[in-house]
């Protein structure tokens, strides 16, 4: 019997392979799809604007919101420029302490992004290390690590983050916690969300392990760590990229939620979440902009990241560990 016949593949899979093509085609497709999809270009440029704005916040911002000498309490609660009573110095109005909203938002975005990216980098590091270990060594190590991942996931990550942040705050006191907030938030959000990365990496490692080249590399006497870094990791990049993107959105949401609860950034150095939190009580006194404008900025940022992540997922179409 013919060789091809020993391995019967359904006609359907053939149509699919005709559609998906090989890796080189895939990359071309990614660029192609990017050029074709105007909406995604728009999202990407918006994200770029966010990144540049937060990178150059000290240059762009007309005021330094951390510098108390630049703040006048008499300017408090001024509405944005286009509203009645707006002040030409303050494009987006001022908050309850008289700080320029535009500047505070720029600095706030900077902090939100810093914590988001920092936390996800930590997640990736932890997740990839744990996933590689579990997948590569298998057996008891694997089942123990995945059991821990299961339990970690069944306890909501936000719950764990809230409790951890709460304990830190109670232990350090409000003032010291405020000073260390950025580091603590990165640590807390970075350590609780590793299972997603770990599971995905593990799944890819298990799939790759079946393939001959890994075995060949081992036979040729390469150490296990070298095989993992040089061979397996590059093959897991596309699912990791998608998770990385989507997780940044989640991390920013988590940071904002913690800050809203008073467990995140202090009012003196607010992230977007802390800004919204401090503006919350003023929506009852009709000063809606203090909470709503940073809210819109935050939602737009998360939305853009989510859209890009979804688009990447559709384009790369990697095999996911289903949650």
């Amino acid at each position, binding site marked *: 019997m013919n060789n091809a016949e020993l391995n019967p593949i359904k006609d359907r899979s053939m149509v699919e392979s005709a559609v998906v093509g090989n890796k080189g085609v895939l990359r071309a497709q990614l660029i192609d799809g990017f050029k074709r999809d105007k909406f995604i270009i728009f999202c990407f440029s918006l994200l770029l604007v966010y990144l540049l704005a937060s990178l150059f916040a000290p240059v762009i911002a007309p005021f330094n919101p951390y510098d108390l000498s630049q703040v006048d309490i008499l300017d408090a609660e001024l509405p944005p420029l286009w509203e009645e009573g707006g002040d030409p110095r303050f494009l987006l109005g001022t908050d309850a302490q008289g700080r320029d909203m535009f500047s505070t938002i720029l600095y706030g975005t900077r902090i939100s992004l810093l914590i988001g990216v920092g936390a996800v980098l930590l997640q990736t590091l932890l997740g990839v290390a744990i996933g590689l270990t579990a997948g590569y060594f298998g057996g008891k190590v694997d089942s123990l690590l995945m059991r821990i991942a299961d339990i970690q996931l069944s306890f909501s990550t936000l719950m764990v983050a809230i*409790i951890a942040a709460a304990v830190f705050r109670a232990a350090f006191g409000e003032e010291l916690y405020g000073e260390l907030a950025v580091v603590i938030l990165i640590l807390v959000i970075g350590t609780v969300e590793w299972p997603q990365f770990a599971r995905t990496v593990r799944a890819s490692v298990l799939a790759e392990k079946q393939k001959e080249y890994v075995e060949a590399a081992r036979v040729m006497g390469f150490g296990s760590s070298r095989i993992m870094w040089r061979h397996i990791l590059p093959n897991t990049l596309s699912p990791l990229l998608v998770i990385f993107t989507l997780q940044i959105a989640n991390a920013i949401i988590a940071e904002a939620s913690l800050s809203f609860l008073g467990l995140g950034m202090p009012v003196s150095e607010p992230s977007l979440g802390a800004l919204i939190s401090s503006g919350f009580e003023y*929506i009852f006194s*009709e000063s809606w902009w203090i909470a709503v404008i940073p809210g819109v900025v935050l939602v737009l940022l998360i939305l853009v990241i989510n859209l890009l992540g*979804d688009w990447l997922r559709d384009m790369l179409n990697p095999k996911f560990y289903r949650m």
Partner: protein
Amino acid sequence: MVAFLIRRLIQAFIVMFVVSLIGFAIQSSLGDPLRELVGQSVSEQQRETLRDEMGLNDPFFTQYLRFGEKVLKGDLGTSYFFKQPALEVILNKLPATLELVFGAVMIISIFSIPLGVYTAIRPYNWVSRLVMGFSLIGISVPVFLTGILLTYLFAVELSWLPSFGRGETVVLFGSWETGYFTRDGLLHLLLPCITLASIMLPLFIRLIRAEMMEVLSLDYVKFAKSKGLSPLRIWLVHGLKNTMLPIITVGGMQIGTMVAYTIVTETIFQWPGMGFLFLEAVNRVDTPLIVAYLIVVGAIFVITNTLVDLIYGLVNPTVKLARQ
């Protein structure tokens, strides 16, 4: 069945053990119980004798055993602020939180299943695109912001709905205060429940849609089509049940997230539940209350996860509880 239950119970026990260990670690490192008891006026020597008497100088493990014994008896210490048993304080607030979660779960179930199924069946038409677009926005808006925007719109601008508290409640079965039987109570429930549901609803719509689309592409659905069954029967009988099985498991896991978001929701609407209490306890460094909350929430997680596994086993014929 019995074996399954025993295995689940052992697992639950291990998880609760870890939770209590964390709880104890927090209690022993946060705050000084002595100061709460006797204040600043006592001399150093007297303190030391008191510490010995209370066993605060014992090894960690001995202290933990004592703590564990108390926990098993339901004694989670006395709240510094309320001067009442911490467990009692928390359990008093439990009904409010459970009613909030119940309302949100109702909203999620009522909307996510039809919308998820519809968008899976008709993935390309404009209604589905609209639903999917909204669900993406829904995922991108943090819960607290949803709460703030809803409050601003419906409570401040339109003044249709109340913005805080539980409103008028009725006492049920002697101790359970419920807001579900008064108009005022229901009105107060509306915004917080929608807020709490807002994060999970889009997630579940997307999840159900993805699962359903996968199921609809499987062989047994094609086979059902080749039998000449009506589309409705294929979607609802062949598609939905197989779709909902994995959703049950995910749903069980999401209850944890839900409880976490009650903290946020209760803070926005000053809802007198466990979450609001917990945050107050954190601000007051009321350690016994923090630890009690941790243990109660841990117990809720363990119980719901066990129940969900049990339900999954009962609904799914391919899982045999009896033989495992």
